[in-house]
């Protein structure tokens, strides 16, 4: 064995021993601490009744249901905000990113101001401010603002037409404003609205920067060549610039979507029952800190892995698209 191989072998051995020692020590100390404080461990609590109510839930849930089911409801709530927020922020962000590239100074200035303002203020602060605006500054339910026919906005949230109890065949149940508030239809809670709005607007600023950088990464010669070939400005953008830009836009865009889904966890500050805030409540009820935190981390890691796969698939596809003549 050469000296170099031997040295790297010894170094790795030392690292392995140190790691094993550290883990053993941590395990030992933790076990001793938990014995002393009477903390039990294990995931058995997940099957016990949760013992708390959840503010809003698209799935049937009451406090007698298991903690595991509560966490599932939390995850569904996370996705219920994350998916629409991803769509809204991508559309809005693309529009703003394109706006920043506009030759019109007023438009590009406005878009720049939007990006620079929202990117430089913490998301948590923005969410708290939106939540305050919705719950404190909007009118009471009895005097709800009507934004569209049968769509009402008030302190109690946004009421929209939705399918009646009989399912899709029963027709739409339309919200009506009465003396004591808006009744009927489906209501989106203030927490949901503030989180969806705040997340979408904040992430849109990042998406805008990604889109702008992606389009600027395509050399100017490409669009000039398209013009020279007799394509119109729009055709040149759609057929020549965009396919090349997408290749450098999609990887960072996926990152923005991932960080959006992680940012849903800020819901805990405004009381929207997402996965993290349900896990936090469970933690406070059962005292199982390690287990609850492990659940949060495992779910998010799984989500990241899935997104990474989806993004790799998308990259392969757009790669092919870009090569298409």
């Amino acid at each position, binding site marked *: 064995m050469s000296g170099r191989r031997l040295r790297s072998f010894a170094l790795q051995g030392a690292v392995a021993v140190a790691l094993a020692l550290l883990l053993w020590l941590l395990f030992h100390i933790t076990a001793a601490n938990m014995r002393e404080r009477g903390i039990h461990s294990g995931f058995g609590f997940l099957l016990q009744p949760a013992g708390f109510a959840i503010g809003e839930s698209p799935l049937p849930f009451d406090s007698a249901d298991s903690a595991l089911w509560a966490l599932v409801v939390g995850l569904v709530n996370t996705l219920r905000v994350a998916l629409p927020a991803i769509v809204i922020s991508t559309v809005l962000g693309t529009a703003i990113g394109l706006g920043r590239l506009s*030759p019109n100074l007023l438009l590009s200035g406005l878009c720049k101001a939007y990006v620079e303002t929202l990117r430089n203020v913490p998301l948590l602060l923005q969410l708290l*401010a939106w939540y*305050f605006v919705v719950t404190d500054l909007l009118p009471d339910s009895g005097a709800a603002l009507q934004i569209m026919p049968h769509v009402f906005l008030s302190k109690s949230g946004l009421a929209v037409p939705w399918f009646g109890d009989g399912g899709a065949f029963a027709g739409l149940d339309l919200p009506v404003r009465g003396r004591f508030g808006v009744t009927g239809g489906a209501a989106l809670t203030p927490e949901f609205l503030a989180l969806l709005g705040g997340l979408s607007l904040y992430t849109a600023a990042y998406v805008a920067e990604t889109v702008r950088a992606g389009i600027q990464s395509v050399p100017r010669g490409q669009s000039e060549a398209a013009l020279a070939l007799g394509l119109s400005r729009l055709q040149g953008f759609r057929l020549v610039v965009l396919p090349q830009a997408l290749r450098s836009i999609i990887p960072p865009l996926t990152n923005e979507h991932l960080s959006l889904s992680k940012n849903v966890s*800020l819901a805990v500050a405004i009381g929207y029952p997402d996965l*993290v805030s349900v896990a936090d409540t469970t933690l406070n009820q059962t005292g199982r800190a390690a287990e609850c935190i492990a659940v949060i981390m495992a779910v998010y*890691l799984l989500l990241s892995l899935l997104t990474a796969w989806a993004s790799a698939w998308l990259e392969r596809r757009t790669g092919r698209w870009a090569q298409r003549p």
Partner: protein
Amino acid sequence: MRWLRRNLFSDVWSSLTTLAIAAGLVHWLPGLIEWLVLKATFRPDAAACAAAAHAGACWGVVAAKYRFILFGRYPYAEQWRPLAATVLLLAVIGVSGLRLMRPGALFAAWALALPAFFLLMAGGVPGLSPVASDRWGGFPLTLLLATLGMLLALPLAVLVALGRQQSGLPLVRGLCQVYVEAVRGVPLISVLFLASFLFPIILPQGFSIDVLVRVQAGIVLFAAAYLSETLRGGLQAVAAGQHDAAAALGLGYWASMRWIVLPQAIRAVIPSLMNSAVSIFKDTSLVTVVSLYELTGSLTLALSGDAQWRSFYLEGYLFIGLIYWLCCYSLSRFGGALERRLAPGSLP
């Protein structure tokens, strides 16, 4: 006239856009200015604010509460101490950014400023009464968490980034990789929960550490994963010939990293590092979830217990939003200036 034509009315679409935006501004701007300035109440007078009924902003809430918002629950009579500590730290940061000192002097300045910051905040020496860290709050706490977060995460990130390059040491490389991917995959809040709930359980009995230190450790571990990913990009950008040249000069691994590779790698990613610094600064606002009252937390603390001012949160949010914005915007502008200065071709 020519400028107008080129920038605002170059074709039909541009003209229509300009007119639409101008109409929007004419419609909204007067109302906004009225709310912000003309009808606003500037005196710390709760009755006047309530009488205005949100027709104008109530800046009185800032006038009445600014010391609580800025310094949290720090004892009122001693608040010159966090002020002095903050000014000191900001001055050292500014001096570092503007390159007013030689590296050696700068190192000495930091080595003096950080202990001085803690001495002023914590006290416990003759002339300075002791103040427990759970009374620290507001802007000094935000600044401390962000500054230490960046300062301590950077060396750790360098080690991890180097670890991920060790093709000869698969165990080390695997460990670094797992650490980076795991941390980048989970939200910061879960790391803060870990720091606040779990660290006490995994540490030996009688070895309790302050919640501030635990949360700071959480922020450092979180930031280091992101910084190391950035640095790895920089390391990959260093040409292979540089490693070979360093080896040919007889430099060992650490010497060649210290003098040849890392300076080039770090220079290549300075703009991304500045972006990370902005993110860390903003992320410190999350520690309010684990009951540390930095700027965001101290605002909530200042207003939630006071029925007189409770309906004027929005003005408070705008006030601290402006503080965050000033800090983050100047950081990112500074990053932009560095990027231009370090751009290829501008170097000697």
